[in-house]
């Protein structure tokens, strides 16, 4: 499984990478780190990820716009939203666009691992 991590916070990008590396997700390899939606699309075109963790509030291009662009690029891509925007309408908007799951910030390592496994299994 090829994972692209999209978040404008370096702390979160590194944390998700660590959870993947140390958390028993042995079949998952991080193939890219992006700090906004535009960078995510550029990396996705080259790295062809199967799974994407997606922040929503980001500069340049936000997560909602990026989800739509990535689904257009690869309709089979699995997107897990990882965001502080945990209100129902935001989650519904992301899921309607094609995201497969939602993890609210702040999150524990265990919550993220379970969500990543769920999204990976939904392929």
């Amino acid at each position: 499984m090829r994972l692209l991590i999209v978040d404008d916070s370096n702390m979160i990008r590194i944390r998700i990478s660590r959870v993947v590396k140390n958390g028993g997700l042995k079949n998952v390899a991080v193939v890219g780190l992006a700090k906004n939606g535009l960078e995510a699309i550029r990396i996705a075109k080259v790295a062809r990820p199967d799974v994407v963790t997606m922040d929503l509030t980001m500069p340049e291009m936000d997560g909602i716009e990026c989800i739509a662009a990535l689904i257009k690029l690869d309709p089979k891509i699995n997107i897990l939203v990882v965001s502080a925007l945990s209100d129902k309408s935001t989650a519904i908007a992301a899921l309607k666009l094609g995201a497969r799951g939602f993890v609210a910030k702040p999150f524990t390592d265990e919550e993220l691992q379970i969500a990543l496994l769920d999204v990976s299994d939904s392929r």
Partner: protein
Amino acid sequence: MANLTEADLKLFVDSIKHYLKVTTRQEPQITSAFLGTGDVQGFEFNGIVTFSGSYNGHVVVSMPARLLRELLLLQHETDLSDGNLLDAVGEIANTLAGNARKTLGSGLVISVPVKMQGAPGIKSRVRKHPFVITLRWNHHEAMVCVDMEKQD
């Protein structure tokens, strides 16, 4: 500030407690919560999120370097540069603001966080009567400053 209720403001108290408890497993102690003046004394690292839409204003998270370094170390982060400390405090402000939408509604529009280094950073953003929450986490003092009003 007159339009904000006690319940609206309590959500920021609960939110910072929840953030630190979930990410570090150590809940902070809230040392005070009061209506302050524009002369707020902040700390060196400041994360600021601006509200628009149904509310106008800001939330500012102000923390000292020592607290942020410990917080990053607990997350196994080894890069403790000032840039990473600013990134961390910005992410905390972003999380508090984003979580507030759950209670204040999706009409609350939040900006990407602005990060400022230097104690005067907080003063440049707050207006006359911000709501100030002071806290202690792992022997370190920090502050969350909420300065927002509801739009009609």
